[in-house]
């Protein structure tokens, strides 16, 4: 029985009685109002009364018919003597609590009169989808498969990449209201014992009603709950999980969650993409550098525009200054208001594009960008130069591989823009100093967030800042 099922017991925890009717009555009471509860009475060849109980919809009907019901009728299974060709996994239960949990987990339960033991048939079949390609973390080269909503399948996807007995799992039940199975995956000898025990302790201590998705657990691992910066990676790619496990991280999976949580991570890792390891080192290094430039542009381009146009236009070369002044002629807003207006508009457009059905969302995004953009320009509500800066910034932000980091950067741009509008470039410099200090203060699961930069580990720079050839890295190559 799974830990979650065991933890979910809320009814009488007593043992089964020899009376079939009494046992069925307790089950009926517990499942009152659950219309899918099915009780199929049968009589064995020896004349003993029995019943097969299951919650319909969670079983493989063929398995149930041929490998559960048929042996039951022959009474072989009810005594635990299972034929060798029996496909269903069989276990015994002696308490009503175990029976209830098994039913909730989708197993079929065989009960018989004068027999104080139940037989649990794992003929369950969840309505899973097939393993498909990733939507969120796409790449040109490299594997395409992504996790699905099945815990077993997800772990199998990782295990098929890391065929080693050192790949271990620890399963816990998390959730105070409806517990869910959460599995911590790690490679013995790579992940430190301290890290593992810390992760396990934090997940155990985490009090949440229900784990809808594994990303909920990131709160348990985060050092700073209100920091906008992600302190773990949420990925739906098995190859990303496998790579990080090899580097000593742990991965956390939860039932019904199509992604994994990888921790601990560093700031620079959030700019890495799985594709980096499938490209040639020089190309991957260039792409990483481009992402760092994108990071700077995302957070600084618009605030810099606001600061320069509002306060230090003497910094702009004369020809550009004249063009900027002509562009801004007739714009009724201050540069700060103008920037916030267009930035909020872009964020609304992005959010709407995500929420709408895909074909509609794409169409709307393109149409809105063109139509609204053109209308705004024609009405002189914002200057073209700012529109270019915002467009460029948005484009840059989309090159950040990690979605949480992408959102964090878009979010922190707003306070930086406001500071730039209020106190000029001094605001940008101050904001960046605070952000850097905050990053230095972060230490998710005991690992400095800015490692290997601060504290320095110069040997790691060739793997973290650039992508050194794998053959140089030896056994622990990335």
């Amino acid at each position: 029985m799974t830990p979650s099922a065991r933890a979910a017991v809320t009814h009488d925890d007593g043992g089964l009685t020899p009376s079939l009717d009494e046992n069925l009555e307790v089950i009926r009471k517990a499942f009152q109002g659950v219309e899918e509860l099915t009780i199929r009475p049968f009589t064995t060849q020896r004349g003993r009364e029995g019943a097969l109980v299951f919650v319909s919809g969670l079983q493989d009907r063929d398995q149930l018919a041929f490998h559960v019901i048929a042996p039951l009728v022959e009474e072989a299974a009810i005594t635990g003597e299972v034929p060798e060709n029996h496909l269903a996994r069989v276990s015994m239960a002696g308490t009503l609590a175990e029976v209830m949990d098994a039913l909730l987990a989708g197993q079929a339960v065989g009960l018989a009169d004068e027999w104080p033991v139940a037989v649990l048939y794992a003929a369950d079949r969840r309505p899973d989808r097939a393993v498909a390609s990733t939507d969120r973390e796409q790449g040109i080269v490299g594997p395409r498969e992504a996790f699905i909503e099945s815990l077993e399948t997800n772990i199998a996807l990782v295990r098929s990449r890391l065929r080693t007995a050192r790949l271990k799992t620890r399963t816990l039940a998390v959730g105070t209201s409806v517990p869910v199975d959460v599995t911590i995956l790690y490679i013995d000898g790579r992940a430190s014992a301290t890290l593992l025990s810390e992760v396990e302790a934090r997940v155990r201590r985490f009090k949440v009603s229900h784990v809808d998705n594994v990303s909920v657990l990131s709160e348990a691992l985060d050092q700073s709950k209100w920091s906008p910066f992600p302190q773990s990676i949420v990925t739906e790619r098995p190859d990303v999980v496998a790579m990080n496990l090899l580097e000593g991280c742990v991965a956390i999976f939860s039932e019904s969650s199509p992604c994994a949580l990888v921790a601990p991570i560093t700031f620079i890792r959030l700019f890495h993409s799985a594709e980096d390891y499938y490209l040639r080192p020089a190309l991957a290094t260039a792409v990483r550098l481009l992402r760092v430039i994108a990071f700077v542009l995302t957070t600084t381009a618009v605030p810099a525009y606001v600061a320069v146009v509002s306060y230090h236009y003497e910094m702009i070369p004369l020809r550009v200054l004249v063009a900027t002044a002509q562009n801004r002629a007739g714009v009724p807003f201050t540069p700060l208001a103008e920037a916030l207006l267009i930035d909020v508009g872009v964020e609304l457009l992005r959010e709407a594009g995500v929420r709408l059905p895909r074909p509609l969302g794409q169409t709307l995004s393109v149409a809105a960008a063109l139509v609204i953009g053109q209308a705004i320009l024609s009405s002189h509500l914002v200057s073209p130069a700012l529109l270019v800066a915002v467009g460029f910034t948005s484009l840059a932000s989309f090159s950040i591989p990690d979605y949480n980091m992408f959102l964090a950067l878009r979010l922190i741009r707003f306070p930086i823009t406001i500071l730039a509008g209020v106190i000029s470039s001094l605001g940008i410099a101050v904001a960046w100093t605070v952000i850097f200090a905050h990053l230095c203060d972060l230490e998710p699961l005991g690992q400095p967030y800015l490692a290997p930069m601060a504290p320095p580990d110069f040997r790691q720079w060739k793997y973290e800042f650039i992508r050194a050839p794998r053959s140089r890295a030896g056994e622990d190559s990335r």
Partner: protein
Amino acid sequence: MSNNQSGESGTLSAVALGPFALTALVYVATVRADLLGHPWPGTAEAGLPSLLLAHLSAYIVTVVASYVTLIPYSRLNRSIYGPTGSRSIREWLALASVVASQGLAIVIQHSTYAEMLRTFALFRTPNWAVGVTLAIPVWYIARMRTVSVLRMTQAFFYLQILALPVLFLPLGEWRVSNLVGLLGRPSLAVLPALPPVLHLYFGAPALLLLDNKASVTVARRLIPAALALVALVLVLITVFVPGVLGRELLAIEAYPGMKYFQTTRIPNVERNDLVILFAFANVAISASAVLGHGIALALGAVGLGKEAAAVAVAILVAASTFIPMIPGGSQLYFVASAIALIVTNVFLLIIPKARTHE
């Protein structure tokens, strides 16, 4: 000093204070934004050799103060006042030393930097706005854990070292002839040049007073090397700026450092001195934050509360920006500097030995 600095508040001995961390700490806390506003009085009045000699003297004094222990003060105190009395004296001397030296370094830096901001960029911005903008990050960093502050110094150290080549950009205008008048000045007229140069060396070594355990004692031995890097940068500026500006400009420019950077051209940027000025906000805040963290640790160690100390440091930063606006502020500034010089350099000589004998 009491041993209540351990745990979350952090101590220097509790974190890895290796050569790199120590160099970063000393550099970030010592190379400050007031460097841009350094008025070079020594150069104009006493000549370049005097100024270089002043740098050498300041370097030696700072190294000696933070490295060599001369007076067996603790034993003397113990025999006169007993263990409790001597401990109390040590704590308050250390506190006075750290607060005076580092506090004044913060005041000097922020009063100068705020004045430069007002002069070059933020003509109409209210002074309180500049003060608050600079004070908030200092407060935020000063209250962080020591290990985080050390990491921050390392992160900023990379940035500042990467930005160092900017120092060489105006060298196209450097002329030996500009130095001729200055080189001819008597090199022994060092005294006028000494106080402002010593100000530049205020800072990080005093932070080490807060902790005298093994790793910090080892780290203290590396201070001469770490300070040498600081001295190199300061000496380079001292030689470069007069060579580019010449004696006449040096005598009239309020901020020769800013004028120095104005002489160069960066493509597509008209006022590169403003870029430098705003980039120095990072230098100003990080240096003050490190110094402020030292004050917060010192006050926290005698039970005055680290959080409250961080707030006090932030108020000090904000208040510093008003000093140039006070009539006679410059006289006040020099009196305070003189006091701080005495306090720092006398107490720096005393405290390390006192701590060693604890």
